[in-house]
Structures are given as structure tokens and as C-alpha cells.
């Protein structure tokens, strides 16, 4: 809503996403960032926890930095559905007047947040990778990639409140959990009523449980076009297994059908921040770099010495992956 006095709005609120009664990793990342913003804005952090029989999760949100947890517990919120979630969040916003609301840029957050922004009539910045505060003007500065990661834009929402953003998973740091930190818990009755915007969830089909999600792996062995074939990925898998990591890939490999889309790192794939990222035969298109450059240590192997991946690599090796990787596997095994 448009406002003449932004100081009437207080608090950094976070949508604490949970699925099947398990809090999503992004919720902790948001709390970490929210804590930092709240300190700069001289306010506190509130988590909004929606679901069915989820109130027991409030203490976990407190451990990661929530000063207050507002719970909405309702059977209608058991599985995510746009309308009841948007209805509950809108009612919380109208009741508590937060100055900032953060959501994960997940398939839930990116559906919920725009619906809420239109209902409240306020600005929403998508897929942020950086959030900061202009303390002098009391505004949040929301930075995000655009044009396929070629350009960064810093967005503000000067005259409307709350300032809302969805935040890319894997980008913000969680706070260290603190068992002593307790939160005030507020049970909020959102008075949810079935209306014409409700849909019916006829079935829920879980995707096959695969290996660990690349976003959660500490070590990634990532292949690009230079790997050359689906078969050659077996070699990368072997290396990843030795190192206790996972295999990921650039978009070219997904497009070529060598690996599944779930493994894609980059602007249209996942943002990853492992301790170690080994880029094998990846040239390093800007869209790819956008998804991995925050990795702790980057080792790149590529034949082409002018490949852009070397611009971000801590250790760059100009050479043939087909001789280097087997040799590396052999040495690590012995």
C-alpha cells in the first residue's frame, strides 16, 4: 500500500516455508539475512509459519534468529495452495504492518509473493541475490540479476510498504543456530474460508528420490560441453563419489540430454555455493557463472585457455580433461 509515513511500518518478516512439516533450508537462509537487515533497521525479525500441525516448528525458527513466530495452523494449509496461503499472509501483513517481507524464490515463494503483492498493492523484487539497507533513507536495496545474469539491477520500493522480495535459495548465509534464543509465539486466526479462488489438489506425485540435491552438496564435480558425452559423466560421478560430493552440469549438457535438468547450475538452473566446485570442460557462460561463482574454492579444467571460467577459478588448469580426470581418480584412490 502507498504510504506517507514509512515509519508506521516496522519489522522484518520472513515467510517460513515448510513442506510436509519440514522447514525448508531457504527459511533459515532468509532468517540469517533478516537478522542482519533488522539490526540495520533497528527492529526485530518475525517468521510467518503457515501449515497444518506445524506449531512445534516454531522453536527451530527461533534457534535460527526469529524473535517472534506468527503461526497460522489450518487444515486448508496442509499442502501449498495459492489462495489460502495468500489470504493468510495478506491478513498478517494488514494486521502487523511489517516494513519488509522476504520469501524464498522457490516454486512456492515465486507463486505466493506476486499474488500477495497484487493484493496488498506493493512492490515485489524477484530473485534477489543481495539485500542491503540505505540507513539514511530507511530503504531496503534489493539487487538482482537480469538479462540472463548479464546485468545486475538494484531495486527500491520507496513509497509503498511493505518492501517485498523473493530471495534466491543458496545465496544468503544462515546464522549459527542458538539454542538459547527463544521467540514469542503468536497464534493467528486468519479466518480462512473457501472461495472461488480455491482449487482442488487431486493428487500429489513425489519425484523419485534421487541423490542429494546439488544445492546442498559441499563438493560438486560439474561437467560442461567439453565432457563430450553422457558416458563420460560416469568418470565425473566416480570422482565425485571419491570426494564425497555430487555431480552437476552446465546447461549445454542438459540441453544435449546427457544429464537431467535437476543437475543444472546457472541462471536457469540452481545457484550453488559448495566448499569446492570443480568445473570440468565448462567454458563459463555468464549464465553459468551466475550460479556458482560464490563457491568456496573453484578449480577449473579446460582446453581453451581463454575460457571465461578461468576468470573466476582459484586454480585454473589448461589441459585435456580426458587425461587429467582418470589420472586424478587413480591418484586419489591410491
Amino acid at each position: 500500500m502507498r504510504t506517507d509515513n514509512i515509519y508506521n511500518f516496522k519489522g522484518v518478516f520472513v515467510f517460513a516455508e515448510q513442506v510436509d512439516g519440514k522447514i525448508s533450508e531457504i527459511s533459515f537462509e532468509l532468517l540469517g539475512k533478516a537478522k542482519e537487515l533488522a539490526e540495520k533497521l533497528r527492529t526485530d525479525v518475525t517468521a510467518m509459519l503457515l501449515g497444518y500441525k506445524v506449531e512445534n516448528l516454531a522453536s527451530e525458527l527461533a534457534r535460527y534468529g526469529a524473535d517472534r513466530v506468527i503461526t497460522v495452523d489450518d487444515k486448508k494449509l496442509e499442502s501449498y495452495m495459492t489462495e489460502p496461503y495468500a489470504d493468510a499472509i495478506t491478513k498478517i501483513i494488514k494486521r502487523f504492518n511489517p516494513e519488509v517481507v522476504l520469501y524464498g524464490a522457490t516454486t512456492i515463494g515465486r507463486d505466493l509473493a506476486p499474488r500477495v503483492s497484487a493484493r496488498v498493492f506493493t512492490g515485489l523484487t524477484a530473485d534477489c541475490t543481495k539485500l542491503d539497507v540505505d540507513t539514511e533513507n530507511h530503504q531496503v536495496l534489493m539487487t538482482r540479476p537480469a538479462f540472463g545474469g548479464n546485468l545486475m539491477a538494484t531495486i527500491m520500493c520507496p513509497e509503498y510498504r511493505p518492501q517485498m522480495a523473493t530471495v534466491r535459495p543458496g545465496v544468503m548465509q544462515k546464522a549459527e543456530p542458538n539454542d538459547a534464543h527463544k521467540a514469542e509465539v503468536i497464534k493467528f486466526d486468519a479466518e480462512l474460508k473457501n472461495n472461488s479462488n480455491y482449487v482442488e489438489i487431486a493428487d500429489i506425485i513425489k519425484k523419485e528420490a534421487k541423490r542429494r540435491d546439488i544445492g546442498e552438496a559441499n563438493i560438486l564435480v560439474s561437467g560442461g560441453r567439453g565432457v563430450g558425452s553422457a558416458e563420460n559423466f560416469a568418470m565425473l560421478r566416480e570422482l565425485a563419489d571419491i570426494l564425497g560430493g555430487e555431480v552437476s552440469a552446465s546447461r549445454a549438457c542438459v540441453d544435449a540430454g546427457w544429464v537431467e535438468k535437476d543437475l543444472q547450475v546457472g541462471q536457469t538452473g540452481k545457484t550453488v555455493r559448495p566448499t569446492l566446485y570443480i568445473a570440468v570442460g565448462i567454458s563459463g557462460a555468464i549464465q553459468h557463472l551466475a550460479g556458482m561463482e560464490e563457491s568456496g574454492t573453484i578449480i577449473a579444467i579446460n582446453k581453451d585457455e581463454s575460457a571465461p571460467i578461468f576468470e573466476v577459478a582459484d586454480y585454473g588448469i589448461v589441459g585435456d580433461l580426458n587425461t587429467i580426470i582418470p589420472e586424478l581418480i587413480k591418484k586419489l584412490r591410491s
Partner: protein
Amino acid sequence: MRITVCIKQVPDTNEVKIDSVTGTLIRDGVPSIMNPDDKAGLEAALELRDKYGAEVSVITMGLPQAEEVLREALAMGADKAYLLTDRKLGGADTIATSTALAAAISKIGFDLIITGRQAIDGDTAQVGPQIAEKLNIPNISYAQEIEFDGNDTIRVKRMYEDRYHIINAKLPCLITALGDMNTPRYMTPGGIKSAYETEITVWGRNDIDVDDMQIGLVGSPTKVAKSFPKALKGAGQKTTLDGEEAADYIISALKEKLIIR
């Protein structure tokens, strides 16, 4: 059934390069294309029409040259095309864009609205759900499959990170389409010919029922404070090595970083 598909003309971001001297975007010579997710949405609409009969309208908001993507949509088989263009609508963020589009779509009339999940220039995925909110209809995002019961219910396979929901929704509703849900058809020579014979309806601000305070730059809650090319973290060491030497080098790096002992 009346299906309205929202499409956007976007620069092919795979072709966008950075000028290494000035650090700015080079947009000259970058081709404009129909946004890929929107194209999949159009294909889904055309498939529903082929099966059940429907009138498929396409709408875009943009500069006058956005007419090109409407012609392409007509050549693929869309029945009607609308171009919403006006300086007063320019500079809009997603909220102001959805306000204008929702007003235009109401005027066209609809049972089903399909948009792409997101556009490759902005990557926001916001305009679809926001249009649905403005029209007070349900939205189902991230559609992998769309089916119709031939009567009044749409069945959508909705994608999440680890699962799908099979969702039944009564019309009217809005769906956002994933780019990989289908393979869009090619334009046909006959289609291209009729595309140039079909008149495109051009609307400006005065043709839609909106509040001036809610459209264009003025009606946009968000403002771009600044934009800048992405800074890359500095390069480390780079050496030319092969086979065993390279393997030794990597192992020493892993030891240095305490990843292996």
C-alpha cells in the same frame, strides 16, 4: 472456450554480450524473439483448441514493434491478436504491467488465460499470478501439463522442486506454462500468409479501464535505483598442465584447502 495467451517480445539473452571496455550491455544486433515460456503457453492453447475447439487470442504489451511477435503467433495459428501500446504504460514494473494487461484481457473476455512462467529478460515470474489476482481468478503456476474435461474444469500438473500436484480448477483461471511442457509448432507458409492478412487490434491507454495512478512508471511501486554489469570475482592461478602433473597439482590444491588430508 475463449483462451487468451500473454506473450512478450524479448531480446535473446543468450546473444547479449558485455562490452569489455565500457562494461555495458551490447544490445545492438541482438535478435528479438517470442519469450520461450510464452511460446510453450501458446502451443498449449493451440493444442486445446485443436482438441476441443476454442478461440485463441494473443496479447502483448510493449513498443509498436512488438507487433512482430503477434504476427508470429498468428502464423502459428492464433485467431486474434491485440497490441497494447502507449507511452503512458511505459516504464511499468510487474504490478503496473499486470494492471494494464488485466484490464485489456477483461475487455477481450476469457475463460482461460495462459502466460509463460517467466520472461528471459526479467526472469520475475510475477506478472501471471498478479494478473490473476487483479481479475480475482485462481492461478496455477509452473504447469507441466494441461488437460481439459471438455466442460468447465482444467486439470494441471503443477511442478514443485520435489513433487507435482495434480490440480483441478474450474474456469475461469490462469495458468503459467513451463517452457519445456511441449514443443511449439512451426509457422506454416499458409499461416504466415494469413498472419499478414489478419488485422491486429491496437489499444492505447484510453481503450482500457484503468486508473492513471496504477499504470506505467507512475503506478510502479518499485524503482530501479541503479543497474550495473555483473562484477566477476578475480581470477586465481592459471597453469597449462596435463595428465599426471595436473592431477598432482589438483591434489596439492585440495590439501592446501584442507579438503583432503
